[in-house]
């Protein structure tokens, strides 16, 4: 009984305390939120030991059992402890692992950052393949998506401006009353892009945002009142 009700009481008490603290700046309430966040940071710092344990155990087991791909696991464990070692060495030698001349920073600058950038760069190809599937004209919704995406793309790149300059000449030929210089200045694709992003896209985004905010409040109330218990052990 206590196993179940004690965590719920702690949740209720903590939530009420933080709600009250949001509206009362006077001490001791004013700095409660940052104090709680500090506690969370300390606890999560220690839990990284759990993560380290999980990671090393998982990969060392793979190495000892000579499972498929054990060499990569060995490489991971060596890299992990080499990074840790370099960090500790930099700490002792340069007072901080983040000192500019520290070997840890060299590792960060010349290995970790390029690896992260490489991984991020692959996103361009994934966007291309996902866009190809999403923009295939299958129904009205997909067609609208395709048109909107093309307009936003044309509005974002210099090519859109060049196309519009050619189109303006045609418009001027058909409707001579429209001045060519004024037509050049209109930048139709950029205008359409701005309108699409500022009106329909923003409206849809805000609709989802309002729903999320309300859903969040409902979820928070369910947790505070102990109605939602699925996150607890049974």
């Amino acid at each position, binding site marked *: 009984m206590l196993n179940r009700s004690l965590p719920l009481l702690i949740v209720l008490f903590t939530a009420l305390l933080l709600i009250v603290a*949001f*509206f*009362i*700046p*006077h*001490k001791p309430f*004013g*700095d409660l939120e940052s104090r709680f966040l500090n506690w*969370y940071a300390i*606890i*999560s710092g220690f*839990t*990284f*030991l*759990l*993560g*380290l344990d*999980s*990671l090393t*155990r*998982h990969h060392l*087991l793979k190495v000892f059992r000579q499972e498929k*791909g054990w060499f990569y696991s060995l490489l991971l464990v060596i890299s992990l402890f080499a990074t840790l070692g370099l960090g500790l060495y930099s700490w002792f030698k340069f007072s901080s692992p983040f000192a500019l001349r520290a070997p840890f920073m060299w590792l960060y600058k010349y290995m*970790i950052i390029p*690896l*992260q950038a490489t*991984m*991020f760069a*692959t*996103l361009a190809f*994934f*966007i291309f*393949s*996902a*866009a190809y*599937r*999403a923009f295939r004209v299958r129904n009205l919704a997909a067609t609208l998506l395709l048109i909107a995406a093309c307009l936003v793309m044309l509005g974002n790149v210099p090519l859109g401006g060049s196309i519009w300059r050619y189109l303006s000449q045609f418009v001027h030929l058909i409707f001579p009353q429209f001045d060519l210089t004024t037509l050049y200045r209109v930048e139709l694709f950029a205008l359409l892009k701005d309108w699409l992003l500022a009106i329909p896209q923003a409206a849809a*985004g805000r609709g*989802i*945002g*309002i*729903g*999320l905010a*309300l*859903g*969040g*409040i*409902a*979820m*928070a*109330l*369910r*947790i505070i*009142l102990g*109605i*939602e218990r*699925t*996150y607890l*052990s*049974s």
Partner: protein
Amino acid sequence: MFCLSAFLLFLIGIAPPESLLVKDNPNDQGQAIVITWTHPTPESVLGYRIYRSLFPETGFMPVNIELITKTEHLDSDSALRNNTPYYYFVRAYSETDSAQSQIAGPVLPRAQWFNSSRLNVLILTTAISAFFLYYITKARRGTKMFIRKISGLDAIDEALGRATELGKPILFSFGLGYITDMVVISALPLLRRIAKKSAEYAVRLIVPNSDPIVMTAAQETVKEAYTEAGRPDLYNADNISFLTSDQFGYAAGVDGIILRERPGAIFWLGYFYAESLILAETGHTVGAIQLAGTTETTQLPFFVAACDYTMIGEEIYAASCYLKPEPAMLGTIKGEDLIKLILIVLISTVVVIGTVGTILGEKLPFLSQMFNAVVNWLTPPS
């Protein structure tokens, strides 16, 4: 002309700052004073230095070492003591000269018991919570509530069935979410459901994590689900492991798992950033049936493009109510719907008032005033 004004300035010297005003900074826990002033010839001023003292005539010490160019300053020195009188003056500096304002004070820094700038939040939160509580009570009294079909949640069984038929494992990811994120908490019951089914079908469940606390919560959830299903022997903590908290390191790790294990079903339920498409597209290349749900609206289009089913917006928050439709849980969903309806009516009314007010600005000026009053009341202070 410039030479003349510079010569005159040299002759008469710089003018002192005027209208020095010192007041307690509102809505804080004290230890902060707002100082404002004006200067008749701001173009001649190089910068200002503020001086503070506990006494009206002596003991003034500079508050700022570097000269400031604005005519407003917040003195939030940790040495300030609440309910203690302080006196200030400001000295303006030019290239060659300086002049000080009159002394202002006493001013007492005070801590407030209520943050009046958050009154609108208090009123709205109380009103919204009251609606929720009303519907929870109503549902508990036996009023039947209905929850609409969420195809993303219905697809869970389909995805699990397909993975079982193919004899492939299932992959579940919380993304880069922390346990403090609401979306991660709402994804835990879904993991429980998936884990229970995977135990029943004897399918391997892999949960790579980016946060050790989330990993621990996931391990507990899966372990309990396996026990509930009567297959605790199938539980292997190694399948619910920690990868890395680095964004692209995590993406690379999960991509590697997908390509090696080739899961039959993948669930992306949690917090995702730019790595969302990298993950979902890799899942697509191995032919897995994919189900996604996130509260990060910027990533939703990527999931919609790459996954078979996507839970949009607050659908993921409603997951636990959908899976376990208890009256009190459903009451909150009903309350949410009613508040949405009220908000739609309110927003539409305010938009109409604002539009008509702009068109008939001169004839009906109160409409624009009303619109501005509502917008200002709702806008958070900067």
